[in-house]
């Protein structure tokens, strides 16, 4: 999937939708009016943009997610690793850890993840 960029406010809006989905577009209008003081048309315009970016879907006024929040952010991270570490996960992890130690729980969780990943 192509790189998707979200602005800070767009991201906030997207989070709002993920939190409440499935939700009607008129509900969203009310929510953004409260949270952002947006007009109806503005809420619709930004929603339209998010739909075009492939995050959500609007069926007759009911807004549902196409990909979940976790899916989306993991996609972002993968894209980030791709861009910044030439796709090398170890390099990313090394950078993430920056020489600090990991706890026993974290090591356990990572080991389990590796096993699962290797199997599939």
């Amino acid at each position, binding site marked *: 999937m192509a790189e998707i960029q979200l*602005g800070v*406010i767009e991201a906030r809006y997207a989070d709002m939708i993920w939190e409440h989905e499935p939700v009607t577009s008129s509900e969203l209008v009310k929510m953004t009016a409260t949270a952002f003081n947006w007009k109806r048309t503005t809420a619709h315009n930004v929603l339209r943009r998010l739909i075009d970016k492939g995050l959500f879907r609007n069926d007759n006024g009911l807004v549902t997610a196409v990909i979940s929040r976790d899916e989306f952010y993991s996609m972002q991270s993968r894209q980030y690793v791709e861009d910044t570490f030439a796709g090398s996960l170890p390099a990313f992890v090394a950078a993430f850890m920056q020489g600090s130690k990991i706890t026993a729980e974290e090591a356990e969780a990572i080991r389990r993840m590796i096993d699962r990943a290797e199997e599939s």
Partner: protein
Amino acid sequence: MGDIFLKLLNMSITAGWLILAVICIRLIFKKIPKWVICLLWGFVAIRLICPFSIESRFSILPSTEPIRSSTVVEGEVHNYIPSIDSHLPIVENTINPMLTESFAYNESNSAAPLQVVTYAAGFVWCFGMVLLMICAMVSAIRLYRLVREAVCVKDNIYICDAVKSPFILGIIRPRVYLSSALNETEMNYIVSHESAHLKRKDHWWKALGYLLLCVYWFHPLCWAAYALLCRDIELACDEKAAKDMTFDEKKEYSKVLLSCARQRSLIMVCPLAFGEVGVKERVKSILNYKKPALWIMIAAAAVVGILAICFLTDPRREKEEGASSAFDAADGEEDLNVENIGTENGSAENGSIENGYMETGRESPEQMDDGQAQEDDRIDVISRFMDIPWDEIESIPDVGFYDPSRWDKVICIGEIPEYDIRVYGYNDEDISGRGVAIDIAGDVNYFDWFYTTPQQIMPNLYWDEEERQLQIAFHIYTGTGASADEFVILQQYDTGTLVPHYFTYNDYTDILSKRIGYSFDNGSRELTLIDKVTGREVASVAIPEGEISEIIGIEGGNISYFELGESIKLFVRPGFFREGSAIPEYGGMPFLEFEVEREWVTTASGNTEISFDIGELVGVHQDGE
């Protein structure tokens, strides 16, 4: 439309000088706090907004009306012929005459070329102004669209995804729009900077500046002024913020500036919102900022004061302009003969005409030594004359003659019917024998001259068709021991204007005094007149006996008259003075007939005029001739 544009053009030229001065000051006095420079830009705005100002001697401006819609030619005001008022001789002598020639028009045309040009220019200007205003509106609308998705963070501070470089939008309720991707430190600095802008009301000044730019878009210096104003506003804000920062804070601030910096095309992206301008300059000024020393502030105050006096005040209108401005009527020509007489023979500004009156002892209410009152009278005659409807004047049938009961407001004092020339004189209860209107085939010129005396001898006229010159000899020197003319040649131009050239009483009596000599033989009681130029004896007169015998002097001119025509003659009867007497006697003296010479000369100030001289003695006429 055209007149408005002309007025704006003149205002912009005078403001242009101030803009140049501020630019120079900005370059030279780099240490002056930028808020002071912004104040100077305020002066520029004042100059561009106010059509007039107080007059002062210290004004450096050359003129408040550099491009005039009327020209003064030989003392006559021609409307609708442009001239440039620059006080530079080269302009007076080369450019203005060219303008007069190329814009000369026949009064029968419906519109002068200048009127057409200014009307067209006015339209172009209006179009440009509207265009610029539309640009601003379009930009503003685009920005408002952009920030629809902005979200309020606090008070009037908003963040928006689409905003990359921070700006302020709105004049009445301004809002600060920031990029949503800023971290907290960055946001703090930027907010403090933009708040400083709001506190200084910069959003108003910038809008005002743009509005003035819309009006004065045709003047390139105004664009420079606006661009520099935007810069200086930012710098002033930086200074205000940097005042209380430590060096580290200043570094942080600069970093933030850089990260927000964005390439901006000159001015126009959105004139009402503003963001970063000239980042490099700003970073330098912030890092080097030091609170200005006292002497700098004093120098700054002095500069501001001097600039205000020199450029915010208008130059004093000169005396000659003062006189003519009182005559500024749309129709009819006015006369500045006061100026001409004064300069030609060096006599007092009131001119020889008044002196002549004093000698004859004529009493008239207006004849006071108070120059100011006469100045007012002078103005009054012509305006009173012009108040009389022309058909009333035209219908006066005959050349009038003196009869107090028959004085109407206007009499005809001379005419040449073959050329459709009539000359009229004004007269009412206050003003007598003064005020002349000359009608040559429908072209009328007014002059503030005395045209006769209580003896009511009317002037002589002669029209030279080839040269288009009207010669007039006014018989206005009469009284004890005096009966003399004042002579004028009026040159007619295609526009119908008459320009006077005078051979005044003082002029020719001066010349005569150097021309006529004498020798007196007490024994034979013969007075011999000598022409000093040729050295010849011209006449001998036997002087009758009187109480005192000694002749101490002669003089010529007090009894004289002109004969007009293609060749002009001056007839002079010299008088002699006995010892102890101040009254000249004329018994037995002949009339000397001189030729009057005239030629066109160029004066020191660059004007061309007719210069008169007394030429050959062509006749000596004893009694009875």
